């Protein structure tokens, strides 16, 4: 078990390194003079030259990468000239907002998906199953911003229940905070529900054909009891894996949702930094996001092995 974790960590190191390299190259290798882009087309040649010198942009790229990596490992992700703030603290400050809507969204997704999948698996191809399936399908085909707009239209414009923009931090009161994140979280939750529902449903249907279900029924359990007590527990593993692996797409969703609802999270930071041509900030955000995805995947792998004893035997 420990060996498995160690092996995974060792496998992960080159990936993490690769992530930093790719993040750095994406921002620094693409055409266009960075200093010029940052200062705008009207900047004087002197100003551009000065900035280039200051940022060390005339050094060879691998040297710049190593400098950046070195400071990044000590927690310093650089200074954003455009926004006149240090990168790492800004990211850290915005993290909680993104985390909140992501976690709430996943919670909504799970709360809706689990009973839905149970109901669907109880009567496959019954009307509940078909209706939920159709709903899930439609949610997947709808881009998040469109879904968000629909929700705004329904709940913020028509029935004025929730605000359509703006964020209220927890410090200003729980109710206010929850109201301000309700629609964004619901936008994310709808898609999560769709994915979880599909996965859970197919996993449960697969498990239902296994022999132990027949044995449980023969013992006298009702269909519902058999499903709840045995099938659900075995299907949870697949669900946990999906929840964990969906972290990457969730960040994409957060980017859209934060822009749409004007929430001060990481996604919004990324978009505004791109608008402002703030290369240093973009670099920092991108590398933090990617590194988090890698670490979350590792955690999911480990949890997966912990939950599913069958894998443990192979893994030794």
């Amino acid at each position: 078990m420990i060996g498995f974790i160690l092996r995974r960590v060792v496998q992960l190191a080159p990936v993490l390194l690769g992530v930093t390299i790719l993040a750095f190259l994406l921002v620094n290798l693409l055409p266009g003079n960075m200093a010029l882009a940052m200062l705008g087309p009207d900047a004087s040649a002197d100003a551009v030259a000065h900035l280039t010198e200051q940022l060390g942009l005339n050094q060879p790229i691998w040297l710049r990468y190593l400098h950046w990596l070195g400071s990044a490992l000590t927690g310093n992700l650089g200074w954003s000239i455009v926004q006149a703030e240090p990168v790492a603290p800004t990211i850290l400050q915005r993290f909680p907002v993104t985390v909140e809507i992501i976690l709430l969204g996943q919670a909504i997704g799970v709360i809706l998906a689990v009973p839905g999948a149970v109901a669907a698996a109880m009567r496959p191809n019954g009307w509940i199953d078909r209706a939920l399936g159709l709903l899930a399908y439609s949610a997947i085909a709808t881009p998040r911003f469109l879904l968000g707009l629909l929700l705004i239209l329904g709940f913020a414009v028509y029935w004025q229940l929730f605000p359509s923009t703006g964020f209220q931090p927890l410090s200003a009161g729980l109710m206010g905070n929850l109201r301000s994140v309700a629609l964004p979280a619901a936008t994310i939750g709808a898609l999560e529900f769709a994915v979880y529902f599909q996965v859970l449903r197919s996993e449960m249907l697969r498990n239902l054909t296994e022999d132990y279900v027949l044995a449980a029924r023969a013992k006298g359990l009702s269909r519902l009891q058999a499903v709840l007590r045995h099938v659900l527990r075995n299907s949870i593993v697949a669900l946990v894996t999906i929840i964990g692996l969906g972290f990457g797409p969730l960040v994409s969703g957060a980017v859209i949702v934060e822009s749409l609802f004007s929430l001060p999270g990481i996604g919004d930071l990324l978009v505004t930094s791109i608008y402002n041509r703030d290369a240093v900030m973009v670099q920092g955000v991108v590398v933090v996001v990617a590194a988090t995805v890698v670490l979350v995947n590792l955690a999911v792998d480990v949890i997966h092995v912990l939950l599913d004893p069958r894998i443990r035997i192979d893994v030794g």
Partner: protein
Amino acid sequence: MRAASDQPDLLEVRGLVQEFRRPRHLPFAPPRVLHAVSDVSFKLQAGECLGLVGETGCGKSTLARAIMQAPPPVRGQVRFQGQDLVGLSRTELRQARRGMQYVFQDPYSSLDPTWRVRELVAEPMRTAGGFGRQQVDARVDEVLQLVGLPADRYASRRPRELSGGQCQRVAVARALTLSPKLLICDEVVSGLDVSVQAQLLNLFETLRRDLGLAYLFISHDLGVVRHLCDRVAVMYLGKVVETGPAERVYAHPQHPYTAALLAAVPRIGNGRSGARPAWARLSGELPSPLAPPSGCRFRTRCPRATARCAAEEPPLLANEVDHAAACHFPLLAPATEAAAPKRAAAMVQDRA
């Protein structure tokens, strides 16, 4: 006058060793090696049929593949028609190996489902190169006829339109196109219905008679091997434990493992209650090829094992003419229930 033993062997395997590396548990732990085939040697004459039997996992298929150099063995020699195949380059190997063909167990997976029968059968010729289009077509028709699948009806079909038995015939036809001297058949009738098995075995007999083919016939089914093969070699955990003429080995096995295998074959209407004599009962499970037992590998399941069996590995010795076994205490007399324990005890005393 030339004696039969002056003829060069068609196939001679010497000291063949095949091992595989397995991933380590921890990054710096010692490497784990799977000993699939350990020091196997045997000879096969032209036109002869040698059966290779043993439990699943004993290394028969790995041995066969190693003979084909796919992948080549870690150590040892494989002399086919006098030439050692080990270490040859791909082009050299293609030329040297032409007389040797391989037929797989699963009829469907050995035929590309997107190809038609004609293309499938023609593949060896096309890959070898040097044949004209008409030559290839003519030969394909010829071999399809040989296996009983007339070209006009079968050549343009795809594998999914054929039954399992027909697919195996296509695989055999494909193997015959380059006029091989040796056919390696790896469990080719396992998984087929008994009636289909019989048809295929008859085909093998016919081909052998008409074309003078030699076979290396791998099977876990002792009955099939007895029917078809002149000689038989018994494998256990990567080693050959007994070789000899098929009839002789079946009637009077020398190695306890062979005896146990034979006794395990269910027989109908024999009046036995099913209890096997003590010397023929297998106990325990197959040890892992990652860590084979010291000395005689069979000792952990052998009811006759002694300390010597753990200390010293028994070599393959001919206890009768052309009939050898790798055992310190081989069963040298006709095995009857009453006599065996006494004779075994006597032999133990003799050798002690």
